[in-house]
């Protein structure tokens, strides 16, 4: 009879067996997760299950601002205008609009017989209230975009007169979904409550909301374009982690999601529809020229020459992005070809400029403040290390506060752009631009160049030329170095029809779920 193993030996064997037993189901589960078919994802009802990596922190559009979250808020709120696939302003809650002869006043005619989901009428007073709130509310994130507005008056029940401080033909684009999503004035009387209990006149109504986690919405039958909304229910879910989103799509937990470029191939392999929504995204390196060492123009130029945009594109976009040295993608109406490639990648020149500025290799030590670990930061770090600038990365969960207070010296930012090119330019280069880390610094001649764009009607043959001239002036700013265009990649179940290709937007008009 064989000897019974000693207790330690048995325990050793038992722990190894336990490890193996735990590993086997884990592998089986992961294999199962990878074998689900996209055909089973829709759940068979017109329910959109949208996993988003930027679940709104604020549901009051005035507080939420013009960032990517406006796409989700657009489920609830309508605005005066919207944009079409060419980026032109088209009617939304405003049926029509008209400028006066000098371009200093614009009258919006609101659609008749519209109501917010709390029963409050959508009328001129409600629109005036929304504009006034955007300008005057203490925590407004968009007041800086409304500097052209002198005041707002109403005429009759449906006409809103917007009086301007200067001639500005950008207003119809400005009053779209990014800046003027209109909340019920009754609900907005309590902005704190509105921030977590949104009430709008958009295509959907929020029925439940778990802050930061999940929102459940149903179709708004009284939406002015309800006939073109074919989705009955929406579940908006905060995506837990980029690596798990494709699995969630495969298994039917979601049927629509924004995904990172690194997940696109996996999503395609899983039989999902992967598409790139056109947009105006541009990533940048933000410098504060009010602080050392960036108060030395030669150091700024050295950093500009040290940046190899191709590396960002090759390593981060997986073939879906492109390089840009302007706050928009190449090909956009505001992109100025004359100002393209002003600072090509040239590490030798960068080192020379640093030497001329009096810095030896390794003498400049910078802290790159960012809100979360992103490979972009590591690329910046390695590219600057190559020219002798030592960068340490500091991840600060409270990054937004010092960034928007302009207290940081060196940071990264990515914009989803704006419908109005002027808004994009002023946000980046204007003295109070939220994305100008060097406020109140602005490039010489910028205000005049922007004023000229505002004075040029968008349908004027000169518009593109004037706009590009303003971009050229803006790019003389030493506060921003643009790097690449991050793509708007989405993956969806095949049961969801194609979305309208409206640049920068996620629009559900006409979309069906089979």
């Amino acid at each position, binding site marked *: 009879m064989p000897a019974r193993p*000693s*207790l*330690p*030996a048995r*325990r*050793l064997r038992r*722990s190894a067996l336990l*490890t193996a037993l735990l590993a086997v189901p884990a592998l089986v589960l992961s294999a199962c997760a990878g074998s689900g078919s996209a055909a089973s994802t829709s759940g068979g009802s017109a329910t959109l299950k949208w996993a988003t990596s930027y679940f709104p922190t604020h549901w009051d559009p005035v507080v939420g601002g013009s960032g990517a979250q406006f796409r989700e808020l657009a489920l609830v709120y309508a605005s005066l205008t919207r944009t079409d696939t060419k980026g032109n302003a088209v009617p939304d809650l405003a049926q029509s609009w008209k400028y006066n002869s000098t371009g200093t006043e614009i009258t919006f005619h609101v659609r008749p017989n519209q109501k917010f989901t709390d029963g409050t009428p959508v009328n001129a007073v409600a629109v005036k209230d929304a504009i006034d709130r955007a300008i005057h509310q203490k925590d407004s994130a968009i007041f800086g975009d409304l500097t052209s507005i002198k005041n707002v008056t109403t005429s009759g029940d449906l006409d809103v007169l917007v009086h301007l401080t200067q001639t500005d033909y950008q207003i119809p684009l400005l009053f779209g979904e990014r800046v003027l999503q209109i909340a019920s004035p009754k609900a907005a009387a309590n902005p704190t409550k509105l921030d977590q209990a949104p009430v709008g006149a958009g295509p959907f109504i929020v029925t439940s909301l778990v802050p930061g986690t999940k929102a459940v919405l149903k179709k708004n039958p009284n939406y002015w374009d309800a006939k073109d909304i074919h989705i009955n229910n929406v579940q908006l879910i905060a995506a837990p*982690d*980029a*690596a798990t989103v494709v699995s969630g799509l495969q298994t039917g937990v979601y049927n629509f999601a924004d995904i*990172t470029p*690194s*997940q696109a*191939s*996996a999503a395609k*392999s899983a039989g999902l529809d992967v598409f790139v929504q056109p947009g105006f995204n541009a990533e940048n390196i933000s410098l504060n020229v009010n602080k050392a060492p960036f108060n030395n123009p030669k150091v700024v130029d050295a950093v500009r020459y040290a940046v190899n945009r191709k*590396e960002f594109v*090759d*390593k981060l976009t997986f073939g879906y992005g492109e390089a840009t040295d302007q706050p928009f993608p190449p090909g956009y109406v505001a992109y100025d070809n004359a100002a393209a490639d002003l600072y090509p990648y040239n590490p030798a020149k960068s080192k020379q400029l640093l030497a001329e500025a009096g810095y030896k290799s390794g003498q400049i030590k910078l802290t790159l403040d960012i809100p*979360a*670990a992103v*490979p972009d*930061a*590591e*690329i910046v*770090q*390695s590219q600057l290390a190559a020219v002798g600038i030592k960068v*340490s*990365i*500091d*991840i*600060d*969960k*409270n990054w937004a506060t010092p960034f928007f207070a302009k207290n940081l010296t060196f940071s990264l930012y990515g914009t989803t752009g704006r419908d109005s090119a002027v808004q994009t330019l002023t946000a980046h280069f204007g003295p109070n631009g939220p994305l100008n880390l060097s406020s109140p610094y602005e490039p010489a001649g910028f205000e005049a160049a922007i004023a000229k764009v505002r004075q040029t009607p968008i349908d004027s043959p000169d518009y593109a030329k004037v706009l590009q001239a303003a971009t050229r002036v803006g790019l003389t700013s030493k506060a921003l170095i643009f790097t690449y265009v991050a793509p708007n990649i989405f993956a969806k179940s095949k049961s969801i029809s194609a979305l309208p290709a409206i640049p920068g937007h996620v629009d559900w008009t006409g979309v069906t779920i089979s």
Partner: protein
Amino acid sequence: MVRRILSLRAGRLAAGILSAIALLAIFGPLLAPDNPLGSSSKTLAGPSGQHWLGTDYLGRDVFSRLLDGSRDSVVGAVEVALVALVVGVIPGLLSVYLGRVFEWTSLRLADTLISLPFLVFAVAVTALLGNGITQAMLVVGVLVSPVFFRVSRAATLAVARSQYVEVALISGASVNWIVRRHVWVKVLPAVAVALAQTMGVGFIVVSSLSFLGIGVQPPAPTWGGLLASDLNYLHYQPWAPVAPSVLIMATVWGCNLLADAIRDVSGETGRALINTRKAQANGLGAKRIPVEGRV
């Protein structure tokens, strides 16, 4: 003690694994064949003669990053264990001898610390004090310390009420002498078991925090951090998480085996201590079984 541990198969295995990990922590960064922070254009490359474990999303050599990340991963776990040891054992011993006020206060404090979720707390502390491994592990060490507090208190209680200690007290021995001469010897095996287990727990905590991007600033590699970044590129490198996972599992397993081995060689005393703890957990603690009386 060491010889007795090595006489067991589990002890030998634990010693082998933990020695290898310790060597990696000490010499790993020196042994790295490539610059662990040096990127290249060969991103997400498969294993090859040049890159044994392939390259990551920025073209960095994964094997070099794994070696370079050993130190931070191990040092964090050691820090947790040592902080927990110091913060837990001394009050555990003193709670038996310093009177009812200290006993009541220290017990309630231990109960409070146990109720705090240490991962969440570590995240909060790094948000307050800055994202660094030292402060994160300091907090985790304090939160894990009730394990040592309870183990050392239970062992001390068992010894303190034994007849030979009472005899020593009657004979005029000081509390200090009794602790050094009788109590510490009996407490040590239980503390050693807890220490080995806490190292394992600390390692999991370090790996979890670095997996979440907390504690170590990029681009510094850690095993948990490597695992986290690998998950984003599973489609391209499905094998990538294996190496850091195996290292994490092996280290934790090694710590647990060592704890088992220490417990086994600590003999009847060690088992008795465990039995006492179990008895207390089952509501029999009030009887305070005199351990030495069973020998």
